[in-house]
């Protein structure tokens, strides 16, 4: 029996991109259902009643919520093909540590880069650069965070890359000047089909920001 895989998503979400990339890496056929987060659908509210957020992965009618949990679920459910997490327990723990770090530290300061102003935005910029520099140190001279193979930590972070142009424009700074290795890593990731397919054009994100601010009442 064929698997039915549905992804409730929102096109600019760096979190939704993680799940899309993971599914593409495993060559899983899925139905992408774009959600209106300002008018949440019945299925979204039913499938994620606790958080009412995207992405939601629905596998044969059963929902899995939280993007990194989805990535791990995808890796465990479809073990063939590209492994998303290392098999060694210590390496897995390291990958999860950095995934958790990205969740706690990256998305926090980013809204203020495109949506904030003044001192708050300056503080956010500083924090964001510090976090990226920590990640850059962790990356070192490796091709990907896990070494030679693209995987979990790369998937956790890469979705934010398509927002970089927007951050730079609205917060007035250059990310490449501060963290050139991160930019080089991101361009390397974009060469992968799964990533190229799953990330929207940065231009589209930058053009969307004013509309997003209006809808969120952030003017």
């Amino acid at each position: 029996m064929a698997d039915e895989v549905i992804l409730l998503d929102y096109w600019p979400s760096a979190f939704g991109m993680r799940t899309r990339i993971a599914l593409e890496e495993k060559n899983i056929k899925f139905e992408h259902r774009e959600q209106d987060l300002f008018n949440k659908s019945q299925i979204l509210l039913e499938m994620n009643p606790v958080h009412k957020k995207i992405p939601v992965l629905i596998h044969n009618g059963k929902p899995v919520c939280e993007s990194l949990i989805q990535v791990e679920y995808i890796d465990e459910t479809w073990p063939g093909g590209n492994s998303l997490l290392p098999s060694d327990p210590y390496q897995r723990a390291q990958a999860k540590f950095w995934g958790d770090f990205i969740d706690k530290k990256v998305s926090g300061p980013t809204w203020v880069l495109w949506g904030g102003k003044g001192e708050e935005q300056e503080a956010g910029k500083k924090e964001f650069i510090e976090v990226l520099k920590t990640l850059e140190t962790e990356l070192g001279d490796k091709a990907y965070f896990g070494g030679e193979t693209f995987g979990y930590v790369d998937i956790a972070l890469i979705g934010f890359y398509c927002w970089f142009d927007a951050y730079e424009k609205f917060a007035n700074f250059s990310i490449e000047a501060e963290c050139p290795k991160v930019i080089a890593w991101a361009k390397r990731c974009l060469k992968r089909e799964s990533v190229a397919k799953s990330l929207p054009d940065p231009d589209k994100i930058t053009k969307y920001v004013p509309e997003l601010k209006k809808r969120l009442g952030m003017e």
Partner: protein
Amino acid sequence: MVTGDVKLIGSWASVFVMRARIALNLKSISYEFLQETYGTKSELLLKSNPVHKKIPVLIHDDKPVCESNIIVQYIDEAWSSYGLSILPSQPYDRAIARFWAAYVDDKWFIALRSILTARGEEEKKAAIAEVEERTDHLEKAFIECSNGKPFFNGDHIGYLDIALGSFLGWWKVVELDANHILLDETKTPSLFQWAERFCNDPDVKPLMPETTKLAEFARKLFPKPQA
């Protein structure tokens, strides 16, 4: 079987440290417990967890693992042939356990903590209401996950039991501080009964801090503002 050299940097009062210790007990792993002094951070802690500088840190053959839920998963995987499994065997059940463990940390614990840090009666009332609402979610989660069995994980304690159960000492302390029942036998009967079973588990009992001692520590950590 050789378990290797195992150290755990932690504190008797920490919920997150307790998670790691319960997991090590479940696997019957001997370890050296390195108690941190409250108010200071040891050289070893700063070296082993330079990013967050927090406990617990598990050091296995000189390699550090940080973040309590990650440590518990590591213990389950590194010593998979020891004792019983901590995580469920099926990917979907594992995803559900991980989801609720994340909920405990990101939503439930934050609400519990805000009772202790609340300033004034209004803030306290609001914090209590939030904890009650979120505990209700956990009651439903228990019914769903346990499937009629005694623990979230089934017949024996597992990942999600550990994630939430480690809070039981602090849960009591916050109840006393708020002067309000937060684990109600009539409102959340399944959780109430689970809590008793969890605390009596032989791998948990010796680790659960004594309420008076913990309450005294809580007063140090969360001093009340002067009137």
